């Protein structure tokens, strides 16, 4: 956002500041590849400064509280900064402590997450020496960041163990609180065969109650037990504690915002981008990118006192790794589920939607370069629009779906 806005909001009238307590910026999609030694730590970490325009002030401090009624930010040391406009981009993070026993005696011994850098690295070390057994890949509850990541992890694990010539020693089970690995009819029809081909068991409608560290099993509220030798779980995702400290969030610390304008529902000079908000869009990085384009326009309109554009349509665009050097691509929004077709050029592609291909896999790997060199610098990706295009896609008819 700073890279977008600094072209429009110039000194001395405007000063843009970023407050970030971290020294480094992590390429979070890389966490998926780290456990399998596909990416190394240095591929996914860069210093924050590299991406900040000269005119923008970077304040590397922790925030104690946002004081939205006073238009102020209180830093950890007690110092207060005032603002005219605030953009909240504090994201979502895992909260394993929400489930009894998850962060217990087996945490990072046989129970791992891969949604943090530390978790993904610890899992890499475990996978390097693991000799096989029951691998359980598990989602605690929705919503989560990048909802397809656990499925991708499962596909990559199948591929990883095949390459290590030990697939026959590993039993893979995918456990979800939802009705299945695929919950949308089109995706289910097009992709269900992948699970069978890869010999992946699916346990659906599993609402975890606790992790039994002693007997190494996850147990659901209905009493069902699933034993594991290695559990890779996606814990409950929540907004940042800062949002709770500031009294600005819902039960999961997400900030209520208008889903079409991204303006806070409570404070008109606060806008929310990415996973920090409660809007019913997917918590995917591409969503934040598309939001940024519309949010830039809306902040400029807000400054001029003009009505905001109600344009954000929940557009998301994700590559999904399916293992063995192949990937899928999906494109969807608030009202349209992912379907087959071509992208970004209707009828031409070169990328195919909802179909496995090597080209899609190359796209996913190339995306890391695009992220560091194009997206963070606020440059628009050619031919990919912030709102979704319907051409070149195989819709039966337009129908409304929830969430």
């Amino acid at each position, binding site marked *: 956002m700073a890279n977008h806005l600094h072209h429009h909001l110039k000194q001395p009238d405007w000063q843009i500041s970023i407050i970030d307590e971290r020294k480094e910026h992590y390429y979070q999609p890389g966490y998926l590849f780290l456990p399998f030694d596909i990416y190394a730590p240095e591929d996914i970490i860069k210093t924050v400064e590299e991406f900040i325009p000269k005119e923008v002030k970077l304040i590397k401090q922790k925030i104690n509280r946002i004081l939205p009624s006073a238009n102020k930010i209180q830093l950890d040391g007690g110092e207060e900064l005032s603002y005219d406009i605030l953009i909240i981009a504090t994201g979502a993070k895992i909260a394993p402590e*929400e489930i009894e026993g998850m962060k217990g005696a087996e945490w990072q011994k046989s129970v791992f997450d891969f949604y943090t850098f530390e978790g993904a690295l610890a899992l890499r070390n475990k996978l390097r020496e693991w000799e096989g057994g029951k691998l359980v890949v598990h989602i*605690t*509850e*929705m*919503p989560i960041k990048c*909802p*397809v990541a656990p499925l991708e992890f499962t596909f990559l694990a199948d591929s990883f163990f095949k390459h290590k010539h030990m697939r026959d020693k590993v039993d893979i089970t995918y456990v979800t*609180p*939802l*009705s299945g690995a*695929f*919950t*949308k*009819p089109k*995706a289910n029809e097009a*992709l269900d065969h992948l699970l069978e081909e890869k010999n992946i068991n699916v346990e659906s*409608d599993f*609402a975890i*109650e606790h992790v039994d560290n002693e007997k190494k099993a996850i147990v659901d*509220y*209905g009493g069902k037990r699933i034993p594991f030798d290695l559990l890779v779980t996606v814990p*409950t995702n929540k907004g940042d504690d800062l949002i709770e400290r500031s009294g600005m969030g*819902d*039960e*999961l610390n997400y900030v209520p915002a208008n*889903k079409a304008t991204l303006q806070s529902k409570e404070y008109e000079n606060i806008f929310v981008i990415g996973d920090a908000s*409660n809007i*019913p869009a*997917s918590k*995917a990085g591409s969503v934040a990118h598309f939001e940024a384009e519309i949010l830039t326009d809306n902040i400029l309109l807000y400054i001029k006192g003009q009505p905001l554009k109600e344009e954000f349509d929940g557009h*998301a665009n*994700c590559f*999904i790794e399916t293992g063995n050097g192949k990937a899928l691509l*999906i494109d*969807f929004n608030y009202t349209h*589920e*992912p379907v087959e077709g071509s992208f970004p050029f209707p009828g031409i592609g070169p990328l195919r939607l909802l179909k496995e291909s090597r080209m899609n896999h190359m796209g996913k790997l190339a995306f890391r370069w695009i992220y560091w060199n194009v997206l963070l610098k606020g440059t628009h990706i050619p031919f990919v629009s912030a709102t979704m295009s319907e051409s070149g896609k195989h819709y*039966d008819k337009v*129908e409304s*779906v*929830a*969430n």
Partner: protein
Amino acid sequence: MLINLFKSSLKKQNMERTINGKSITVNEEGYLKDFSQWDDKVGEALAAESGIALTPRHWEVLKYLQNEQKNQVALSIRRVGKSGVVDIKEFYQLFPIAPLKTATKIAGIPKPASCI
């Protein structure tokens, strides 16, 4: 080829149903397509199909779920458990098999879903 053609003609996305003389449209999994077609009688009939006789406690939970859907809140079992309306243990007692999937169907709202 012929078999495929036959299969695709069988593959119905939506289905018209009649409950107590009222016509409703459901998707391939039996979930209502349009909440405006829902009423208490439809709820009772859908519950009976899942082997559940609705009590006042069931209704409180169903109304809560409908309200959450109206506010576009993503539903999860743990969120229901934190709602103060019902705890997870009772939720399982009320709707014993896959409670959220069953309760959303009876409430006439979409089942919780992911992006694919």
